[in-house]
């Protein structure tokens, strides 16, 4: 018991020490950079979307799908040549939140683990970073769609 309180006091002291030496994150600067990088990626996505609408007869509603695939392809090239890492250092969430960030997470995991073999390394680790997005996306979508369907069927 006495030991525990001792531990708590030590933890408190450590937290204070940590707080004193932790560098303050430049929140405003980071947000500006995220806005800039994220905005530019989305504007490029918009250009790709218009490309599919004008040349491949997609509509405004369906053009989002090939756009996503194309953006992931861009992410492959940028990740493979090591550009995306630098972009992530500068843009923070601006590079992580667009779908290119999802692509980057998958592709960098695949490249990184290739030395462990194609089945156990690449196949086993490809969703190591991006898996949580799929799991929580699918489960939340399941709950939302289930509630909505029940609502509609009950005569909503």
């Amino acid at each position: 018991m006495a030991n525990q309180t001792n531990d708590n006091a030590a933890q408190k002291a450590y937290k204070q020490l940590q707080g004193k030496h932790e560098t303050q994150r430049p929140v405003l600067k980071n947000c500006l950079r995220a806005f800039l990088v994220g905005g530019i990626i989305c504007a490029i996505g918009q250009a790709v979307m218009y490309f599919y609408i004008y040349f491949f007869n997609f509509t405004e509603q369906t053009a989002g799908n090939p756009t996503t695939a194309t953006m992931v392809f861009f992410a492959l090239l940028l990740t493979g040549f090591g550009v995306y890492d630098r972009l992530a250092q500068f843009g923070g969430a601006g590079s992580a939140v667009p779908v290119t960030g999802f692509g980057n997470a998958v592709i960098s995991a695949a490249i990184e683990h290739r030395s462990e073999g194609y089945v156990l390394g690449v196949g086993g680790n490809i969703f190591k970073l991006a898996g949580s997005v799929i799991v929580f996306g699918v489960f939340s979508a399941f709950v939302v769609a289930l509630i909505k369907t029940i609502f509609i069927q009950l005569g909503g």
Partner: protein
Amino acid sequence: MLPMFFWAFVVGGIICVIGQLLFDVAKLTPAHTLSLLVVIGAVLDGLGLYEPLMDFAGAGATVPITSFGNSLVHGAMQEAEKHGIVGVVTGMFEVTSAGISAAIIFGFIGALVFRPKG
């Protein structure tokens, strides 16, 4: 056409700033932040709010990861209209297929072609 680019830039940028605030202020890890954004996207579509945003901002709403949650719900609801509750499970990936397939295909190609750095 030009206003569409502008709004894609602004809305996409704002969603990324929300992500950055979750990083810096809420001190979440990137994985937590992205998972949270996907869940938010799914809930917004459930409330019927994401579709208008997509009409308004185009790629500004479809490129950020929030649209992943939105299109999962969309696929599920499309099938649910035809087959009832079973459709919720069978239709889940109907719309999202492009993103996941592309990520797996290009990820594997990347592993074949590129070598890890550093």
